[in-house]
């Protein structure tokens, strides 16, 4: 028994096990909470919350935050718990480490990429999870268009990054 729990918690899991767990959890979320998995909706509430500490009046007068008020929603709880769950898993498998990239430019690249992701996901009304993991299975036309565009975007992004790496050599 000890060795089994030991193995379950500390070693990596096969990919198909993970896929079945994620799929079941998202279905459970859909049944119990009324909406399948999504990442950025909860993050908009987080932005509204942070914003309302710095400039409460401005947040109240921004149209977009009428739909995403500065409150803690269950989608935001799920986002925060996702980070915590990954942290627990990483600590148990001795994978947790504060990793700072050797090239500091990578941090700026990450921040810039993040801005594009946040902006793009809101413009497309969903991220990869909202559209590909949740929307395409529901057969939504909008999700199929957005999901395909994301994959094309990743192709373009890979080409740009590859060119940068080559020119820096």
């Amino acid at each position, binding site marked *: 028994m000890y060795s089994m729990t030991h193995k379950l918690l500390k070693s*990596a899991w096969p*990919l*198909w096990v993970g*896929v079945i*767990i994620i799929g079941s*959890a998202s279905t459970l*979320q*859909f049944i*119990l*909470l009324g909406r399948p998995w999504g*990442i*950025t909706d909860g993050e908009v509430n987080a932005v509204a919350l942070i914003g309302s500490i710095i400039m409460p009046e401005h947040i109240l007068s*921004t*149209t*977009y*935050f009428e739909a995403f008020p500065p409150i803690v929603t*269950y989608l935001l*709880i*799920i*986002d925060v*718990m*996702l*980070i*915590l*769950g*990954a*942290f*627990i898993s990483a600590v148990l*498998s001795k994978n*947790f480490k504060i*990793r700072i*990239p050797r090239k500091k430019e990578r*941090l*700026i690249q*990450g*921040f810039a*990429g*993040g*801005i*594009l*992701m*946040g*902006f*793009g*996901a*809101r413009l*497309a009304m969903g991220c*990869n999870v909202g559209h590909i*993991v949740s*929307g*395409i299975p529901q057969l939504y*036309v*909008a*999700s199929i268009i957005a999901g395909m565009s*994301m994959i*094309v*975007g*990743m*192709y*373009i992004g890979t080409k740009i990054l590859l060119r940068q790496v080559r020119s820096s050599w």
Partner: protein
Amino acid sequence: MVNIILVSILIGLIYGFTLQKCQICFTSAFRDYFLFKEGQLIKALLFLVLLQMILFHFFASTGLIIEFDEKQGGILSLVIGGLIFGVGAIFAGGCASGTLYRVGEGQMMSVFALFGMLFGIGLFAELYDILNRTLIQPLSVGNIRIPELLNISSIAVVTIGAIFFLIILLLKNIMMKKQIE
């Protein structure tokens, strides 16, 4: 209320734990495929979409899933937003879910990416009125699903979809075997 909070906490922990354990990330899946033709993760994600498709429709038919989500937008906003997101995800080294689990692993680049995402969302909120007029409202794709668009039953679409996904999965296997031979 307490139940909703408890369920959210539990489900969030399950997502994070599993994503970290299996290193599931859309961006690494597609990047590895585009760079090294390594398609293992893409196959797993395809399987995830297929599994969700069957589970969602099964539980919708039993009435446990009461109502489907809302997914809509203008064609321009969906395409442009999707492209921007895709490029950004490659730069940030992780998709929306992948970035979150990497934050939990202690990767500083992903912490910066997460701050960037929040910043990008704020930027979008600031520009929402003009973007809504120019990209989101025109050429709108309403809250419409393939079955309503083509006027056929959900079961038929799910079956066709399932066969389609299985063919892709099998074709990939065959192609890889040929390469090995």
